């Protein structure tokens, strides 16, 4: 019996060790020829994917694998937030020919990766989905579009039933810019599946092809037929791009330091100590060589629930604004890799829209005396208010501790709570919270999206779409936001006056309190690849993040094309 047990044990052990090799290795071996990615020909990236790559449908926002838009599928235009300019991409130009017609001219030598040409039919199909498929992310355009005309093989005219400038602008440019889909493949899908099917064999126009995917990573191989090589002289120097699914940010810093990852778009605590500082030997680099090291990505708000007392009191909200020391959060929690937000909350790429006189007159800054005075004016009676931050968001949890400390310092009884994410979402949509940290206001080509999020009306019992979570009921401001949507982009004076009014009203009523800008986290290891995006005078000043909305719609793809092997 004893011998049996021993033999059985040995067999179990052997099997358990061989099992993963067979299970993982065997699966790959049958379907794949590449066995490894030569280090000097491969770009390793990470910090974008939080789950295994399983989906390459560019319409499945939030679900598609890193690289789906940018490396495989491409939009008509790119947007460069550092210069606030658009870059013609699959289109060569686009313009309003009348208040309700938009004319798009396309490149003529673009082909899909299956060899079929990219034509006006594909663009017309993609735009048309707004009307025919309610599940596509840009379905809200459907109500504005009258029809889509193909003019020859390489020109499309979109006719609108009523003006929808900002919505259309969002379709074309910026982080929600929609990539073009191959009609010959997508039109075969049922309308309901268009936005959800997993598209495991993607056919795109981009510079790379899907090579391999497993739970740990997705790998792309550089295509030899990318249109931009001929048209724009762009070429990816690497043969493979491997994007690694996020582990913990802790693990990731190790990989970056060891040169196993070339580009990390994770929030990596301590990076400011490692760049240039205590150990420049690691060859680490960030966009700026010193604080704030990173480009700004979105605005973090302290979001008061205005449907509840005492947050419904404007003086109380202003007291909050004066009480919180954003600089301390930036330095203690973030080691200065973020910067305190402008009082308007608008991201640096929108600086040109900020009315300095408004900020000078109505802006706020850290000032406990003023906070105390405003608090007194608000008639605050000492009710304890809670600040909700999702559990596990470690930087925000640390920031929440600082904020609570600041609020207590001016006499507000505050407490931080860390519910699970879904509870926090439920609290925000149902309006059952007191204070929350929130960063819904992402990058955009104009301030419209920002104010659309702040002032959206009507307020529903459930504010589901993350719009107006603070529940501010300000019809006048909302009217101004709507006015922006119907003002042609060419009427710059009108637009600027509306922006100024919105900025003033926002600072006077403080529906949300902008605290700091979350960074476009990007840290590079220069061991294998050089000429990384940087503020320094180089040929690469593009966006350095692979995140959805940045890689293919902002200029990250240009940044990748500018990389050079280190040799």
């Amino acid at each position: 019996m004893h011998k049996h047990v021993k033999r059985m044990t040995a067999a179990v052990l052997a099997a358990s060790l061989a099992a993963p090799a067979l299970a993982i290795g065997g699966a790959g071996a049958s379907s794949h020829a590449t066995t490894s990615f030569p280090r000097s020909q491969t770009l390793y990236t990470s910090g974008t994917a939080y789950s295994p790559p399983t989906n390459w449908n560019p319409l499945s926002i939030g679900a598609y694998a890193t690289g789906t838009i940018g490396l495989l599928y491409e939009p008509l235009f790119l947007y460069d937030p550092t210069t606030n300019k658009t870059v013609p991409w699959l289109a060569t130009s686009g313009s309003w020919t009348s208040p309700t017609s938009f004319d798009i001219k396309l490149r003529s030598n673009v082909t899909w990766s299956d060899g079929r040409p990219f034509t006006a039919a594909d663009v017309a199909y993609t735009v048309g989905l707004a009307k025919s498929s309610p599940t596509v992310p840009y379905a809200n355009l459907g109500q504005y579009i009258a029809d889509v005309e193909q003019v020859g093989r390489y020109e499309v005219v979109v006719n609108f039933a009523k003006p929808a400038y900002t919505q259309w602008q969002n379709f074309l440019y910026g982080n929600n810019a929609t990539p073009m889909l191959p009609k010959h493949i997508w039109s075969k899908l049922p309308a309901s599946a268009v936005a959800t099917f997993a598209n495991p064999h993607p056919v795109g126009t981009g510079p790379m092809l899907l090579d391999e995917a497993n739970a740990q990573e997705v790998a792309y191989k550089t295509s030899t037929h990318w249109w931009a090589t001929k048209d724009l002289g762009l070429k990816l120097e690497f043969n493979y791009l491997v994007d690694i699914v996020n582990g913990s940010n802790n693990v990731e810093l190790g990989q970056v330091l060891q040169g196993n990852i070339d580009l990390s778009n994770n929030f990596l605590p301590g990076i400011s100590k490692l760049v240039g500082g205590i150990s420049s030997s690691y060859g680490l680099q960030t966009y700026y060589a010193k604080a704030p090291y990173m480009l700004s990505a979105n605005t973090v708000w302290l979001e008061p629930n205005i449907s509840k007392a005492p947050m419904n009191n404007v003086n109380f909200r202003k007291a909050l604004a004066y009480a919180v020391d954003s600089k301390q959060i930036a330095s203690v929690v973030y080691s200065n890799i973020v910067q305190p937000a402008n009082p308007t909350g608008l991201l640096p790429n929108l600086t040109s829209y900020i009315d300095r006189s408004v900020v000078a007159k109505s802006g706020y800054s850290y000032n406990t005396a003023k906070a105390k005075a405003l608090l007194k004016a608000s008639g605050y009676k000492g009710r304890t208010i809670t600040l909700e931050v999702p559990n596990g968001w470690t930087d925000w949890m640390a920031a929440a501790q600082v904020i609570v400390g600041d609020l207590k310092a001016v006499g507000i009884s505050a407490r931080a709570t860390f519910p699970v994410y879904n509870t926090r979402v439920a609290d925000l949509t149902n309006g059952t919270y007191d204070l929350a940290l929130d960063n819904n206001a992402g990058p955009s080509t104009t301030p419209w999206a920002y104010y659309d999020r702040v002032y959206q009306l009507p307020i529903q019992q459930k504010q589901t779409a993350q719009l107006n979570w603070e529940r501010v009921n300000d019809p006048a401001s909302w009217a101004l936001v709507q006015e922006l949507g119907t003002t042609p982009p060419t009427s710059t004076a009108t637009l600027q006056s509306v922006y100024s009014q919105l900025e003033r009203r926002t600072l006077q009523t403080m529906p949300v309190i902008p605290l700091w800008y979350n960074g476009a986290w990007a840290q590079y290891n220069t061991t294998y690849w050089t000429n990384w995006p940087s503020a320094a005078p180089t040929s690469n000043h593009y966006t350095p993040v692979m995140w959805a909305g940045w890689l293919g719609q902002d200029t990250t793809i240009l940044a990748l094309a500018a990389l050079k092997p280190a040799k």
Partner: protein
Amino acid sequence: MSKDTTTTKDDTAAPTEEGNTAPRHELVYFALRNRKLVIGLSIVGLLGLAAIVAPFSARSNPDAFVGPPMQPPSSSYLLGTTYFGQDVYSQLVNGLRQSFLVGIMGGGIAFVVATAVGFTAGYRGGAVDEVLNMLTNVLLVIPTLALLIIVGGYLKGTSIVFEAMFVGATAWPWAARAIRAQTLSLVSRDFVGLARLSGVRSWRIVVGEVAPNMSSYLFLTFILLFGNAILISASYDFLGFGPPGGVSLGSMMNLAFAWNALQLHIWWWFVPPGVAIMGIVGGLYVTNVGLDEVFNPKLRSL
């Protein structure tokens, strides 16, 4: 695992013909002579003392940002500072306090549940035993983390007290099983039978006859539950289900891990809490074995 250090073997057997039950001062003598007990108790005692005087010896509020970040241990920061510039020493002594609280409360609750379930199941037998056994089995099998996630989901964030209660409510099954086995073996003995025959009420028999006969065993069980509770809560904290802030030993490790202490080589952030837990729990285990040797004359060596 370590819970086997108290065996289900009957260590309360009547002493041999010539041996006589040790009087109390003799226990003390053996206790003082037992190296394991002395070492174990000293470690636990020292750490316990550190926990008790924590509020006085801590240099600051554990969450306060008191100094420059990531300072290695020095005369101004005994155990260095965290990534954020908090004082690791202050966090450590405060964390010790929380760990002892969780250990005593969580271990205590688990002990009460385990003895109640174990005595009832072992003494009553029959259907009651079956039902309690089932409950014990279910708790042994389901991942308690699942329960924690659900329960914790309803509480916006947790506290030490909640955590201790949760650990207490879920960590008792093995102890209940062991106590049940002990009770079974005692119940079959003459004196319990006599008491039963003479119509003494059940709980009185349990309290009056059964419990005293296994008091040393129960005490050892409590010690192990104490240590277990600390270990379990440390892993919950490490997974991020602990109370917020750097206030417990487990969450210190969690924060150190999350904030790159490994890569930034801030070893003084995660080494002390681990050593402290190891000290308490290891000390308790050694104490347990030492006490076992003291209580059980057969294991004493001169």
